[in-house]
């Protein structure tokens, strides 16, 4: 049991005439789907087809910063999960780099209690690999796992010590939970502010080279192979990283990977604006890197889209580029961004994007896989592909507005979200 929320009785509703796409079932066609008390009870050929509407398994985001405890001014469990529901998600996993860090049963237990009271959708929590995320000693992983930690990560920072990664891999045999790694070799990334390349050369911003990511991935894949354990690599950004993961998978290493919508849609050319909503870690990279990420997602090397939703206070992002914190929000825009910039432009198939936002992450993290089949708990997202909407500051449910899409007009909108049988969002 790693997902927590108030739950309650399931809702009953019928969604008529949508094009139902469920990659796990090989379904793609117009159906009427009936949900009774939270369970899918009927899937029948549609009488009337509703133009532009798609019904798909709801999304799962294994990489969200909810900022609790400590920065409730930026996000709370209530606001972050409401944002997730509006983005079409039926489950999310929160990162432990809060203040204090989620490194003890006390902190994790408090979060679980809070989620049981105020989460809009089922919510899980990762605990940190090292105490205080200091990269020195392991947390009490067995106890944390028993209490409900969904996985372990020091996200926001790399685990610099190879020895500590090895110990954590060994220990994951006890916890049965995945290690999820932020890969960054700090003596190479140094004080890097953006991708190292022609744009950083022009702007004078310190470069964070892609090789700083890939050398760590190669190291940790070697360790995972040696220890015969699984590993998940967070937010891939560089082409060398995609190649490293692909090569490790080819050798039989149990390594999975995720990629963010912003790394799939943008390049470091955007940083020319010096808009701090293009400052994220890992940084946006070159077009060749972006294409490698798209290809990695297509061929399955990267099985999962994860938003790395990172809310930041307005006054902290409203600063000169080097002073601003890394990170952008993403829960409420993820599908529309991918649909607008990749599906609509022919770079990726709709079915593949839906699969990588739902089944992919659920399988990697051992969460219930959303399926559209009779007898299943309803975890559904209804999308209107024809909708156009403008991203504005007052349109967010998140408490923060640091979106790279502000001012953009996107195609594709979430109309309804059903999570674990309950209607949690309706536009």
């Amino acid at each position: 049991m790693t997902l927590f929320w108030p739950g309650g009785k399931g809702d009953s509703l019928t969604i008529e005439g949508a094009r139902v796409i469920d990659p796990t079932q090989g379904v793609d066609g117009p159906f009427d789907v009936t949900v009774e008390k939270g369970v899918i009870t009927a899937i029948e050929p549609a009488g009337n087809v509703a133009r532009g509407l798609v019904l798909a398994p709801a999304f799962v985001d294994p990489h969200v910063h909810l900022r609790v405890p400590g920065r409730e001014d930026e996000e709370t469990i209530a606001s972050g999960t409401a944002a997730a529901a509006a983005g079409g998600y039926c489950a999310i996993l929160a990162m432990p780099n809060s203040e204090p860090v989620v490194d003890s049963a006390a902190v994790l237990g408090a979060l679980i209690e809070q989620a049981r009271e105020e989460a809009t959708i089922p919510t899980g929590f990762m605990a940190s690999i090292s105490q205080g995320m200091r990269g020195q000693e392991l947390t009490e992983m067995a106890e944390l796992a028993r209490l409900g930690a969904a996985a372990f990560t020091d996200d926001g920072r790399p685990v610099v010590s190879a020895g500590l990664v090895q110990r954590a891999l060994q220990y994951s045999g006890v916890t049965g939970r995945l290690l999820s790694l932020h890969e960054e070799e700090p003596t190479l990334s140094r004080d890097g502010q953006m991708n190292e390349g022609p744009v950083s050369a022009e702007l004078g911003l310190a470069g964070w080279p892609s090789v700083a990511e890939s050398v760590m991935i190669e190291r940790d894949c070697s360790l995972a192979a040696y220890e015969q354990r699984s590993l998940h690599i967070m937010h891939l950004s560089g082409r060398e990283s995609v190649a490293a993961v692909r090569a490790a998978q080819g050798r039989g290493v149990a390594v999975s990977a995720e990629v963010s919508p912003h790394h799939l849609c943008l390049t470091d050319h955007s940083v020319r604006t010096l808009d701090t909503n293009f400052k994220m870690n890992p940084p946006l990279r070159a077009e060749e890197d972006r294409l490698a990420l798209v290809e990695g997602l297509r061929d399955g090397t990267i099985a999962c889209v994860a938003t790395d939703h990172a809310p930041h206070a307005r006054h902290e992002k409203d600063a000169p580029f080097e002073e601003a914190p890394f990170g952008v929000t993403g829960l409420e825009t993820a599908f529309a961004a991918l649909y607008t910039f990749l599906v609509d432009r022919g770079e990726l198939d709709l079915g593949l994007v839906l699969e990588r936002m739902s089944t992919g992450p659920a399988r990697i993290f051992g969460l219930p896989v959303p399926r559209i089949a009779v007898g299943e708990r309803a975890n559904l997202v209804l999308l209107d592909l024809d909708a156009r909407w403008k991203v504005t500051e007052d349109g967010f449910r998140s408490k923060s507005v640091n979106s790279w899409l502000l001012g953009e007009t996107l195609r594709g909108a979430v109309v309804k979200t059903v999570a674990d049988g309950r209607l949690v969002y309706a536009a």
Partner: protein
Amino acid sequence: MTETPVAEPAVAPRRHLLSISDLDRDDVERLLTTATTIARSLDREVKKLPALRGRLVINLFYESSTRTLSSFDLAAKRLSADTMALRSSGSSVDKGESLRDTAQTLAAYDPDVIVIRHPQIGAPQRVAEVTEAHVVNAGDGKHQHPTQALLDLYTMREALGRLDGLHVAIVGDVLHSRVARSLIGALALVGARTTLVSPPTLVPRGIAQLGCEVTSEISGIQSADVVYVLRMQQERMRAGAAYIPSLREYAAEWGITAARLRPGQLVMHPGPMNRGVEIDPRVADSDVSLITEQVRSGLVVRMAVLYDLLTGGRAEARPALEVA
């Protein structure tokens, strides 16, 4: 997509001077011509021009600077503008919020121009966003220092009579140099050829795409008309960063000495110099050095920049450049 989906910031052309990339070749030509006109007028006994009488120029300096601040201050005074200087200790990193607050406070005085130097890239752009004043970037981090590049072009043209086709070798720490970034762009604008001569650890990866050649061989200066020597910015070298093994080794491999120059080559340096490190004192003080000319050019070029921003560069405003 390679381009950002977000609209480019709408900065009206020539409203500000934030980066050399704000300018086109005609702008550079006009600014240099205005500077020449101003230089002629300064030959007279009374050196004050009435052009900007009643205007307010604020110099907002978040980094210590002697020559740039004094140059802008004198430039504004010589054009009869009122000036005000605000300095920050530079010891504490100034948060964006305080920069915004400072800019808004200053805006209450209705300044015509805010000249800003700031340790952080993009700070002048942020001031431009929150005030009505024309903003001149007097150096933002490692990004840009456009008036330095303009005064360097002016100095080269005065000394050599042309810019088009000129070959300039920029020697030293390009990685940490806003002077180099601005100059590379400016030289490209006027049709000059640029070669960067630098230790491999002090060249930003990908810089060649800005339109210059890159070499780590000091012999790369041989065919240049001008050897432009950058300061070894020790204050930007954090302890342990180890970009180069030692200053001694740098001086031995890349220092500009008389023996490394060929007859007819001219030498420039944006100052302040580390004599004996990047430049041999005998070269700095010799006839081939244009370093004093650069300081003199700085005054007239900054006068031209202020004048151009406040008059829109209109030719009919030129009579104001008559002596008061």
